[in-house]
């Protein structure tokens, strides 16, 4: 039992670490890509093809990893108002669990949609217009991000069932 929990914790830390690494890498890359763009145009009077394309495309990794990390942290944008009307913790727990379940279902759909899209893209050998890189490199984050959201929404759902509606975000639990 404790061994499997141990492994789960390791996987968890690995995934969170990976997301963070990708985010930081994309931001650093985009910054320097844009800097290079400005310098090359303004100082050296030359255009380097495909810098915009590269920055715009890799940014998809940033967005989806950010979204997945937001699900992990449980800091998605919410507009919930039920706690204003419902005072029973039991009922609130059911509502929260149902909300998390809906999120699981939607992100599952997103995952299958993304899978179909990527399959199609690979089949058609789609490439980016300027650099002619396989577009699938930049579509993959949609699939991975969606899948991670399934996992983290599912975990939120289980947490709510086990511990009630007031589950604090992971980031706070860690201190």
């Amino acid at each position, binding site marked *: 039992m404790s061994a499997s929990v141990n492994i789960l914790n390791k996987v968890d830390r690995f995934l969170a670490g990976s997301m963070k690494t990708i985010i930081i890498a994309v*931001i650093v890359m*985009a*910054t320097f890509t844009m800097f290079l763009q400005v310098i090359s145009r303004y100082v050296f009077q030359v255009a380097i093809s495909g810098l915009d394309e590269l920055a*715009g495309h890799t940014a998809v990794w940033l967005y989806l990893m950010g979204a997945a990390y937001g699900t992990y942290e449980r800091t998605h*944008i919410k507009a919930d108002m*039920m706690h204003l009307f419902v005072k029973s913790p039991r009922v609130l727990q059911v509502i929260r669990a149902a909300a998390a379940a809906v999120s699981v279902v939607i992100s599952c759909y997103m995952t299958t949609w993304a899978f179909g899209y990527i399959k199609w893209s690979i089949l058609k050998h789609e490439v980016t217009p300027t650099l002619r890189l396989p577009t699938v490199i930049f579509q993959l984050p949609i699939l991975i991000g969606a899948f991670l959201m399934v996992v983290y929404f599912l975990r939120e759902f289980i947490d709510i069932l086990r511990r009630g509606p007031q589950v604090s975000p992971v980031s706070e639990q860690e201190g």
Partner: protein
Amino acid sequence: MTDLAIGLGLLVILMVNGVPVAMAFGAMALYLATAFDMGSAVLIPTAFYQLKSVVLLTIPFFILIGTLMSSGGLAVRLIDFVNSMVGRIRGGLGAVAVVACAMFGSIGGSCSSAVAAIGTIMIPRMEENGYDRGYATALVACASILGQLIPPSVSMILFALITYQSIPGCWLATVGPAFLTIIIFCIFNYFMTRKMPLKLLPKASLSEQLKGVATSTVKASWALALPMIILGGIYGGIATPTESACVSVLYVIPVSMFVYKSLTMKGLGKAFVSAATTTGVLVIMLFFVMINTRIMTMEQLPQEMAAWILSISDDKMVILLMVNVFLLGIGMIMDDISGTILAASLLFPVMKKLGIHPLHFAAMLGVNLGLGNVTPPTAPILYLAGRIGGVRIESYLKPALILMVGGLLPVVLATTYWADLSLFLPRLFGFAH
């Protein structure tokens, strides 16, 4: 139409029950796709198409600049500086937030980058000074519309390209309404903050005040250079707004680390991840909003709506009102970029027939769809502000609604029925006759 109504109902129900807004939009997309028998093939590609646009990159970078300025000490010094001048006036800091959004508008082309940068810096600071945090969030969210009313503006570029109007002409058309918005918001701010325990700077003699201004100017000089770098970069013809956003990070980091010594490597990494998370949860929401927009467009629902609204009356005044209702409706259910493209191509011929000046219509559209960014249920800017401010919807929705109905709606009506408000500047610069 019934399906659209059901879809919107589903969206609202899920949202108030605590489903993340993005996933609620996802559920609406799933419902509409099923109702209209549309394959998943249509859905994801359209979203990917818009995500990979490099212009969208301004959002994470302006959020990042905001975060770094807050955690790196630049923001504190910047606000101290402004406060040294207006800190003795009641509600001064709120007015600063409004004007800051407008100034930021001259850098970025969208509301989201304005709310990201200004919200991150101003909301915590306003709270420290006694403002209600929910109110501060609402104020910044509503004022961030100035981000697209003050040029440059992405939606006005699209409008101009679609209707063959001059781009600078369209940009100037929304400046009049923007100034009206600033004035109204500053007045509203004065009255809405009357009961809040605002902290004002102690009374001081003129020489003491001047001394205070001088000290804070020196302290803020590194921070003051940043807007100059960004604006200078853009208007000096060195970089595009997107490039400026990315590159100015290279200024903020060393200044925070080595000059103010208030940023560590670990803090930097945290700022990166937090900026990416804020962007990510916003983008995933836009992702589904874009899909919904695409489904509605494929089914030609807005066309039906427009035809219906325009069939109601022949009177110009009534039609103008109906057009406002339509634009407001579009703003409530669609994102502003798609909304602009849609409304421009659907309504422009009608407006021409009515004898409305194209730039006047541009301003109407800009103001309405700007407002649409904060009108629920599709209110990405309002929700983003809530997330940045870290407040629940019930504490910012009420002040936001007051600002919308009392502050922004009059601007919409003034823009609609007082053509000179939007046409004065374009005429002055020779873009309208």
